[in-house]
């Protein structure tokens, strides 16, 4: 790698690191997400021109912010509509926070937390919150966000434009909720990050089982949030959960990208560094008050991660944690996972009875993991014809190609056993 390429790579990583912070500062100063995005892009463009020649400044973040601010002020001056507003904005902004010079020693304020709450605001459509978070905080382009959610770029562009329009015109504020509101608003932010992560863990459609780029982006954002809100135990719990689950990524697929079930995974390929980090975090997520849902899920993931194999996994403890989860965050999916854990502790017949009790849950009706869990237990009970039916139901619902191939494989295996006797 020559010097120029090396600097291009480091410049790229600087932009990724600084993008959310830059955007946060600009939105707070100018109160307009569109304007902030445009001048942030211009500042980055200017950096791409100047830095390779003049070298990367000592405080690249301050350099980008100063440049972007100047561009925003120029733009507002040219724009009649904004002229009056600019006078107010400038006076307020300068009084609150004088322009930092590029080599000033003071720390830049970090306004990414405000941005997290704006992007995850409950007044925005749920499906747009993740997209907006990836766009504004992770600094992904609209095209990259579209690829992340496997929708056409034009569709994603429309959705982002519509969401930004609502932020601007309905005046969704750019602020961190007060201590009294935080318990109500933080779960929304966490669920946005978790939904980005789960889409990366098991893509809801497309050819690949995992979207590692998405999972890693979610972890990166969770790390930022954890730094910004170190005292919030559920943030710690969510980060721990992601790390403990992501630690298994290399073992979850085989050489051809096929699904490898937990029982069959080569556990020496699990990422011990992530596991240890996750275990440390899970301890602080579970101490100092009642456990939250992410902390409990992280504790379950930690028990899987520390077991030598499926047989020696502490299933009674896992069931006990699911019992807690059912109380604090009841949902049909949690009940489904609990039933699977009970089956490991008490045998497939007990688990199956619990699953059959969930048959009427509308939320599980379109969820391929429900018939799959039934198929698995029916197969273990030797009820092969019923198992085959359940595999067929799961196949109708699955959206991911790798999972579909895995299900087909298992269906064929069961049909083979029916034909040739057990």
């Amino acid at each position: 790698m020559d010097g120029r390429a090396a600097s291009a790579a480091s410049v790229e990583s600087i932009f990724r690191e600084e993008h959310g912070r830059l955007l946060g500062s600009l939105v707070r100063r100018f109160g307009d997400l569109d304007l902030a995005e445009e001048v942030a892009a211009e500042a980055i463009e200017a950096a791409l021109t100047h830095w390779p020649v003049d070298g990367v400044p000592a405080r690249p973040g301050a350099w980008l912010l100063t440049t972007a601010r100047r561009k925003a002020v120029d733009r507002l001056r040219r724009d009649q509509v904004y002229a009056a507003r600019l006078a107010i904005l400038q006076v307020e902004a300068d009084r609150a926070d004088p322009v930092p010079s590029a080599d000033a020693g003071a720390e830049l304020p970090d306004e990414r937390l405000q941005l997290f709450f704006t992007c995850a605001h409950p007044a925005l459509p749920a499906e747009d919150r993740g997209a907006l978070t990836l766009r504004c905080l992770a600094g992904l382009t609209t095209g990259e966000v579209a690829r992340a959610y496997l929708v056409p770029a034009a569709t994603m562009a429309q959705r982002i434009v519509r969401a930004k329009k609502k932020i601007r015109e309905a005046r969704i504020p750019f602020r961190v909720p007060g201590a009294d509101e935080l318990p109500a608003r933080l779960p929304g932010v966490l669920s946005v990050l978790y939904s980005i992560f789960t889409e990366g863990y098991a893509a809801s459609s497309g050819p690949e089982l995992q979207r590692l780029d998405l999972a890693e982006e979610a972890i990166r954002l969770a790390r930022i949030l954890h730094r910004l809100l170190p005292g919030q135990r559920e943030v710690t719990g969510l980060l721990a959960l992601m790390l403990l689950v992501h630690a298994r990524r290399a073992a979850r697929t085989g050489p051809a990208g096929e699904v490898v079930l937990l029982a069959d995974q080569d556990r020496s390929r699990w990422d011990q560094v992530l596991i240890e980090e996750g275990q440390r975090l899970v301890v602080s997520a579970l101490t100092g008050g009642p456990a939250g849902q992410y902390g409990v899920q992280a504790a379950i993931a930690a028990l899987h991660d520390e077991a030598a194999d499926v047989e020696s996994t502490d299933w009674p403890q896992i069931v006990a944690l699911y019992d807690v989860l059912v109380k604090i965050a009841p949902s049909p999916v949690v009940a489904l996972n609990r039933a699977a854990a009970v089956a490991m502790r008490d045998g497939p017949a007990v688990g199956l009875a619990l699953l059959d009790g969930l048959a009427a849950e509308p939320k599980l009706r379109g969820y391929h993991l429900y018939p799959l869990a039934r198929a698995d237990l029916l197969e273990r009970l030797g009820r092969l014809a019923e198992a085959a039916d359940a595999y067929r139901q799961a196949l109708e619902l699955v959206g991911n190609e790798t999972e579909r191939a895995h299900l087909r494989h298992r269906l064929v295996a069961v049909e083979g056993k029916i034909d040739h006797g057990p």
Partner: protein
Amino acid sequence: MKYMLLMFSGDPAQEPQCTVEDWVAFEKEMKAAGIWVSGHALADLTTATTVQVSASGERTITDGPFAETREVLGGYDIIDVPNLDVALEWAARCPGSRDGGAVVVRPVADFGS
């Protein structure tokens, strides 16, 4: 920034918990906070009349509309508050958001004034 709070009534079969006093108190609160711009409760839906004028200028006047659904607009308030979060806070205090009812918050368009 002005927002309109549109109050939609809930299921008429459900016994309302909110009283007339709650509504009076809500109006007083808004006025005391200095955010209330205007607002009215609407008369019963059975008194509604619809007017339509065709391209040829022909006027049609019909009785109704009567609710196909339970979502009946019962009244509105316009408030002037700094941002959507504050508007949502007031909407949540409105008795119309209880008893199965809902308050829809719409920013009033500002054409560059």
